[in-house]
């Protein structure tokens, strides 16, 4: 449990049981099981078309699953209408009501439950100030900048103190600098409100930085659930490993010999505890776990990209392309001969079918189904 303030009786638990959804001939979701704990910041991360937005829409009640059930705090809400789920949502497009002022937009969810006029005014003011748009209440959405529109959408969601806060790529329409800033504010807001947040994104950096836990979606299934550390540190499959990280993990075909690993014609020491009998494996190594030294595996520099605080180096290691990240900021010349050092403890192994093989005995399951 990563949420520090967890209590037994708090609200905002979401459970999905065996959710399936088809759109015509396309299986959008196939057996989604997921439990999101109260107060958690939970990300649904995956490439486009992987089913993460459909999952969020099913939680919101905008789609009805073909099979399975949705529970909020133990209550089956699978066929409950969106308005009766106590969930607020921020859409990717913000979906602000263009004919209403910012005040009207934020007030709308309160008006719909016949809140008293003074109470609406007070709460709207409070919500708007909380996201820093208290001075823009009389504007129309069309007169706001992208960042202000996004804040208006946030205020409209938080004004009703919902049990669930659903966010569908809310930062994707902001420019890079604003996105970073809003990201921090979003996390602070979620902590301050102590509300369950479910966040859909295809941006792994966002998911890593915001989430308490996250689920990785691929082809309509959840392939791994865990904290960002768990998912990044111990990806459950080769495809997750190849999706996470910037640049992602190098995946190389390797052969397990009795006392060494053969990769690209080179021999590496074998870490202890690998399951026996796996002759051919996929070896994974993060670019940042490759060090440059005076000795080690010989490789040639093909290209280097300076990022400021580090350098991404494209290397050729015995006929295979490998990316390394060096924190000694220097220019690498094209064609330069270098030596690579890889800590065997930082290697990842995947079976030919892509499943993680664990060299560390006694380690728990990477996939945390619950």
């Amino acid at each position: 449990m990563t949420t520090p303030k967890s209590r037994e009786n708090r609200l905002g638990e979401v459970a999905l049981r065996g959710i399936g959804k088809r759109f015509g001939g396309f299986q959008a979701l196939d057996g989604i099981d997921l439990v999101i704990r109260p107060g958690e910041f939970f990300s649904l991360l995956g490439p486009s078309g992987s089913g993460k937005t459909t999952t969020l829409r099913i939680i919101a009640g905008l789609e009805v699953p073909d099979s399975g059930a949705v529970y909020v705090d133990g209550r089956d809400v699978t066929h409950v209408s969106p308005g009766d789920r106590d969930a607020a949502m921020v859409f990717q497009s913000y979906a602000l009501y263009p004919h209403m002022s910012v005040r009207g937009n934020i007030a709308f969810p309160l008006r719909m439950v016949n809140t008293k006029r003074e109470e609406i005014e007070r709460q709207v003011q409070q919500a708007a100030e909380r996201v820093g748009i208290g001075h823009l209440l009389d504007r129309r959405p069309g007169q706001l900048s992208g960042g202000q529109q996004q804040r208006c959408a946030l205020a409209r969601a938080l004004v009703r103190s919902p049990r669930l806060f659903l966010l569908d790529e809310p930062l994707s329409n902001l420019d890079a600098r604003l996105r970073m800033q809003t990201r921090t504010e979003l996390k602070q807001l979620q902590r301050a409100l102590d509300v369950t947040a479910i966040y859909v994104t295809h941006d792994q950096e966002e998911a890593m930085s915001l989430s308490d836990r996250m689920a990785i979606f691929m082809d309509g299934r959840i392939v791994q659930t865990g904290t960002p550390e768990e998912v990044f540190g111990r990806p459950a499959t080769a495809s997750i490993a190849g999706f996470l990280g910037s640049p992602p993990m190098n995946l190389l075909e390797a052969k397990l010999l009795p006392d060494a690993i053969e990769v690209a014609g080179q021999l590496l020491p074998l870490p202890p505890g690998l399951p026996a009998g796996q002759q051919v494996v996929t070896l994974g190594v993060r670019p940042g776990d490759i060090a440059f030294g005076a000795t080690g595996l010989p490789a040639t520099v093909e290209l280097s990209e300076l990022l400021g605080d580090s350098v991404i180096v494209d290397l050729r290691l015995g006929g295979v392309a490998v990316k390394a990240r060096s924190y000694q900021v220097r220019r690498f010349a094209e064609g330069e001969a270098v030596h690579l050092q890889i800590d065997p403890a930082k290697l990842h192994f995947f079976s030919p079918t892509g499943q993680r093989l664990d060299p560390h005995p006694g380690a728990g399951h990477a996939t945390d189904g619950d």
Partner: protein
Amino acid sequence: MIGRLAGRLAGAATLIVFLGCWTFPVVWGAVTSLKTERDVLAYPPIAAFAPTLANYADVLQGSNSILPNLKSSAILTVATTLITMAFAVPAAYALARLRLRARRPLGFYILATQMLPPIGLVIPYFLIFSQLSLLNTYSGLIVVYVSFSLPFAIWMLVSYFEEIPREMEEAALIDRASRFRAMWYIILPQVGGGISVALVFVFLNAWNEFLFAVVLGGRTVRPVTVAMFNFISLEQTQWARVSAAALIAMAPVILLGVLAQRHIVKGLTFGAVKGVSRQ
């Protein structure tokens, strides 16, 4: 420079020609309505005549007053417009939004009814109405008008509804609005322009209708279009009075067009959704 100027002149000339074509009959009618019957028929036509409002007075208050006919027109038109819009708005919304299997064929069917030449329907309608005792009644004509204007209004409104992003409505549903309230508070205000346009067209078509009114309305239901015949007889056509009556008949429609113009032009949805963002 010269090329641009020539282009603008050509454009202006074209516009003037078109404008002339459209306004000439109206202007001619307006001028005629201010003449005496003698001046109308004067040959060669005279430009300088003593304008008179006598024709208007006669048309409104004389023995052949069109006031009852204006009332008939108003009843037919208002009833047709209200009934049509009451059904067209929800129907268009449903066609634009709901995932109906029959959506496409239904859309085509609605449009197909517009392809029938009305004159081909006059006789069947006459026969059916005589069986149902609907001849010479308001309800009969209103049924006919609604049956023509409803498909047209639906077809027109659907595209306006389709322009509203689905997310707008989903946001409203999540914000605890019922489907009806989502439509009432979120969707309808945004298609206000489209509703105005459809309303004007339905009103216009009903107000201008002649063929069915003259055949099915008989002596009892005579809208103002048919009433033009008050001033046309075997012996003579009272051109000045016909013109005055025509101008009076046009007035409500022109007034409505002017009033609705602002709504028709106004685009409301900009800035709400990404991509469409700020002006």
